[in-house]
């Protein structure tokens, strides 16, 4: 039972354009959402997060949008750069879960020069 789903295993975009990565969840108790970025042969690194009391959080070129009614979040990267090419994992947690994250399966983003 995958509670966090990333239905697109891969995405290719041109340098300079917008990248939109999507994530859906099924557990309505999730109240905190995170995106991690992973390069080959490295561990995931934290990118950006959002609490369920917000619907948008922005950090430089990265913006995360949360639609609670649809149980959907997305990560926007604009403008996309070749160095953004990596696997992006969506993750979620709920209050009182002792920091237990539930991860999606990841989306491989390739930014073409």
């Amino acid at each position: 039972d995958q509670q966090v789903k990333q239905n697109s295993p891969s995405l290719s975009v041109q340098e300079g354009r917008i990248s939109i990565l999507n994530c859906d969840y099924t557990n309505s108790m999730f109240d905190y959402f995170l995106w991690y970025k992973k390069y080959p042969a490295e561990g995931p690194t934290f990118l950006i997060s959002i609490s369920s009391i917000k619907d948008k959080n922005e950090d430089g070129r990265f913006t995360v949008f949360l639609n609670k009614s649809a149980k959907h979040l997305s990560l926007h990267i604009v403008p996309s750069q070749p160095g953004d090419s990596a696997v992006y994992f969506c993750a979620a947690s709920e209050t009182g879960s002792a920091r237990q994250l539930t991860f999606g399966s990841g989306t491989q983003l390739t930014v073409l020069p």
Partner: protein
Amino acid sequence: DTAVSQTPKYLVTQMGNDKSIKCEQNLGHDTMYWYKQDSKKFLKIMFSYNNKELIINETVPNRFSPKSPDKAHLNLHINSLELGDSAVYFCASSPPGRGHTGELFFGEGSRLTVL
């Protein structure tokens, strides 16, 4: 100066053997974790320790035994290895005061291949 370091990075072994993966963090964090990334690429939590005490123990075979000698170390010992144990194992830590937010700092991963 690696913040979360795991050894070994690669491990190839035969079925039935016993092996260990070590993890150390120099970030001063109080909570450490083991995650398993399976063939479908999902990262799933296995164990979590807070100040050397076990706080999360997901449904994993009891052939897997974590050991935390101090809050900077969390080792994973696996007995009687099976083919299905082949995966990448990630150690992670999180700083105090983060509540449930779950921002984790991961190691580079240890790729275990069981033949």
